[in-house]
């Protein structure tokens, strides 16, 4: 009662609309918390907590079996090992080579396909092309890895084809070859991601105002100019998404490599994802595995954030 009286008495002093606005703002904030809350809890439980635990493990020397109280604190030594061990550095390097394979062919071919079917977009040809190119995307990666390892086999279709066109001397067991195993795996990833990139780029190119191409034609543009001055700028966002997704796929790859080569020969095709799994579950070096995982995460962010940042800046 007194409270109410106070409020009424105090009202003339304060600017009149103020209390209502504050109450509304407070209600809005409460609604926001209610809506975001559940999602945030799930995010915390499945992302932030595991991330924090990984960071914690990366500072330990622990076999992952005994009680964690039995683990010894190891400081940054795991990180020093990740950044100095030749094998681990090569493995990180493999990931970047794989990233080039996973990213460049799908984006370049995707752009070529998108440009080529732009004019036939509405036609059946465009739809068919899109469907065919998208198919690899819906095949489980494990199945794709197995199919490709058959094709790369000493008696597989790749070598059969090379023999057929007279390149007998080029035939080899591709996935067992020290030089060609990594590119061979890279091509599998490129094949898988080509569909996704083409899909994104074809959809993106369809959104570019067709009269821009016509204006360019009248301005004297030849096809290469149209590509450079209309298509590429118009697809900047889509290309950014493709590169982001493919780089993440490459740096965090596991299943394709595991099925196709299991990381061999030697460690020629071993990628961080595979090594983390191996260190943690085969070599029982949970601390080192966690440190590698954290380094991998930082590398992914270091590659992806600048791209995202550049795209965001462009929009303003």
């Amino acid at each position, binding site marked *: 009662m007194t409270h109410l009286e106070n409020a009424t008495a105090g009202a003339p002093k304060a600017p009149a609309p103020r209390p209502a606005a504050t109450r509304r703002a407070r209600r809005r904030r409460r609604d926001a918390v209610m809506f975001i809350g559940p999602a945030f809890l799930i995010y915390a439980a499945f992302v932030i907590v595991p991330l924090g635990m990984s960071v914690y493990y990366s500072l330990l020397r622990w076999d992952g079996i005994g009680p964690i109280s039995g683990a010894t604190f190891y400081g940054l030594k795991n990180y020093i090992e990740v950044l100095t061990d030749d094998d681990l550095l090569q493995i990180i390097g493999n990931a970047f080579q794989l990233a080039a394979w996973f990213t460049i062919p799908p984006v370049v071919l995707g752009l070529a396909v998108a440009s080529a079917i732009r004019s036939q977009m509405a036609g059946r040809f465009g739809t068919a092309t899109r469907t065919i190119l998208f198919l690899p995307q819906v095949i489980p990666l494990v199945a794709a890895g197995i199919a490709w390892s058959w094709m790369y086999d000493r008696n597989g279709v790749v070598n059969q084809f090379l023999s057929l066109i007279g390149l007998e001397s080029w035939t080899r067991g591709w996935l067992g070859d020290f030089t060609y195993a990594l590119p061979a795996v890279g091509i599998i990833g490129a094949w898988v991601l080509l569909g996704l990139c083409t899909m994104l780029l074809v959809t993106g190119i369809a959104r570019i*105002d067709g*009269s*821009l191409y*016509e*204006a*360019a*034609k*009248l*301005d*004297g*543009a030849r096809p290469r*100019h149209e590509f450079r*001055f*209309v298509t590429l*700028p*118009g697809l*900047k966002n889509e290309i950014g998404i493709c590169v982001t997704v493919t780089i993440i796929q490459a740096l965090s790859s596991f299943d394709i490599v595991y099925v196709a080569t299991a990381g061999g020969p030697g460690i020629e095709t071993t990628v961080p994802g595979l090594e983390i799994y191996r260190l943690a579950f085969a070599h029982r070096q949970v601390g080192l595995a966690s440190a590698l995982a954290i380094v991998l995460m930082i590398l992914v962010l270091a590659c992806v954030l600048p791209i995202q940042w550049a795209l965001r800046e462009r929009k303003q």
Partner: protein
Amino acid sequence: MADLKLRDVRKSYGQTEVIKGVDLDILDGEFVVFVGPSGCGKSTLLRLIAGLEDITSGDIEIGGRLVNDVEPRDRGVAMVFQSYALYPHMTVRENVGFGLRLAKVPKAQREQAVGEAARILQMEPLLDRKPAQLSGGQRQRVAIGRAIVRDPDVFLFDEPLSNLDAALRMDMRAELAGLHQQLDSTMIYVTHDQVEAMTLADKIVVLKDGEVQQIGAPMELYEHPANLFVAGFIGAPKMNLLPGKVTAVDGHEAVLSGADLPRLVLPAPEGDKLAAGDEITLGLRPHDLKRMPDGPLELHTDLLERLGHETVVAGHLPTGARLTAVLDGRSPVALDETIRLGFEPSSARLFDAGGRAI
């Protein structure tokens, strides 16, 4: 600058013929407007001239050169698109200078040409902005600037003003007319708006369903529409069209009557074009109708628009046929009133049963 000739130009998309044999002569320096309802093929015809679409048959000549198989960039035409089609990632300066850049014009010369275009269109302060930072009218200017800077033989405009608000549209219309005078080049302008056509054109081409209905100077089309379609399309408000019958032809006079028409005596057209018993349509411009105490038309008003300088009155005749008249601004007329209207016999237009002007 160049003249332009179209000879039996046809265009089909699959089975549907969209342009059905257009013959057209456009003189050097002429401002020609293609006008017609939406979907009649105006844009298609313009794009055929630009070379953005291939003609199915016929010939197009620009400046005496057959251009059927010439690429758009080599036709000497520049086009202003309805959507403006500005390159979104380029500044205004780069947009306007793009054609010159592709033509490998040296930078200094290019800058000068862009500056000149910007001066003509009064858009110098905009040169370093991106299209997204411009208003509709400013974008329109840039699009026109991009056309000017290439110094084309023929300018093509596809409904360039349709995305602007009414006031801006009127300003830009005046500017376009001024631009034509200044540049003295051949311009082809597409619109569905007959007011734009009337105000801008040296010559209007009225299209319907891919066929030319009439070609002529604006007043020629207004005064002597070749058929019912042109009569209804050109002029606002629309020409009133009343069905009737010729009851007698007597030398220089024809006597008409109809459900809506009391006995009317009009001057008979030259030649024996009318005979007793012919079905005709009488066309009367709303502006030609006057209040007359003994006028032949009895209008019961049901719509009144006072525009200040004139008053638009619409209503129905005793039979129910609709009629519109434009009276004096201060004309003392009320809703739900019956007024008598008359007209100068010479202002009436007659159309035969096939809709052609007599």
